[in-house]
């Protein structure tokens, strides 16, 4: 339990590539809102109609929550694939 506690509260950085049918403005606004809510630092990368790249940093559980939230995406985007690269 103690070990898990330390692991779970670790700060984690991850770079995501969300692929699918993207509307950049909509997806970016959505991602920024979720990152703010989850107290994550976020750096936006490239975005086009097929993919969006971004990096976040914060508590590991909240990075996971961010990934889950963005996998659903805003109503006008369809996320088909997520690539995650983690650097702790």
């Amino acid at each position, binding site marked *: 339990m103690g070990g*898990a*506690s330390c692991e*779970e*509260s670790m700060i984690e950085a991850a770079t995501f590539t969300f692929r699918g049918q993207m509307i950049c403005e909509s997806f970016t606004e959505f991602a920024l809102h979720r990152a*703010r*809510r*989850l*107290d994550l630092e976020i750096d936006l990368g490239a975005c086009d109609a097929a993919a969006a790249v971004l990096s976040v940093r*914060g*508590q590991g*559980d*909240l990075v996971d929550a961010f990934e889950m939230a963005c996998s659903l995406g805003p109503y006008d985007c369809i996320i088909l694939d997520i690539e995650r690269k983690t650097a702790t």
Partner: protein
Amino acid sequence: MKLEAGWVPVALSSSIEAATSAGAVVEGSEIVVWRDNSGVVHVWEDRCPHRGMRMSFGFVRGDHIACLYHGWQYDAGGQCRYIPAHPTLDVPSTIKVPTYVSQEKYGIVWATASPDAAMPDIGPAVGSTPVRSLYVDCSATDALSALDAEGLEHISTDTGLLACDGDKLFIAVQAITTTKAAVHAVLLGPPSADNAKRQAHHARRLEKMRYALEQAAEFA
């Protein structure tokens, strides 16, 4: 009146027992009114930041309220303190339910986003007995017009005193939507032996007023 504009009556104090919660609406804004175990009342936006579940469906645990959906627990300030699925998580300060300032006066729970606004004042509290909250299918304006016709002596736009069969009622009207209103009524004065009888009498009178108002609205 909107919560941003001043103090809005949202429930009778007696309707919100300790360790319970109830939903209410003020001009379309959904709120939860809940009372913690120590008796302090809280009024918040009725929405868990996690998945949008109504907090009014939640459970009060001590001075926290837990969302029904995933059990996220919020302290009296609206700050999320515990997420059961992540028990060791240091919950960030960004996970918070928007709150309103609340106060109890004259047997009514009031809430506002503008605490500097003046609260309706009828002088020193002399005791009050709850009559009832009456939910009416008409606008707050129409409800107030009907009360004006009964002789309501206004304290503010939405509140007033109503002399009635030797008693004095304090009336506070809450606009729920443009076609729904709540009329909160309390009997002023120290409790007496026949309080229950008088309470029932005034409740029946208000029900008659509701019937008349809804009939008028239906055939307008």
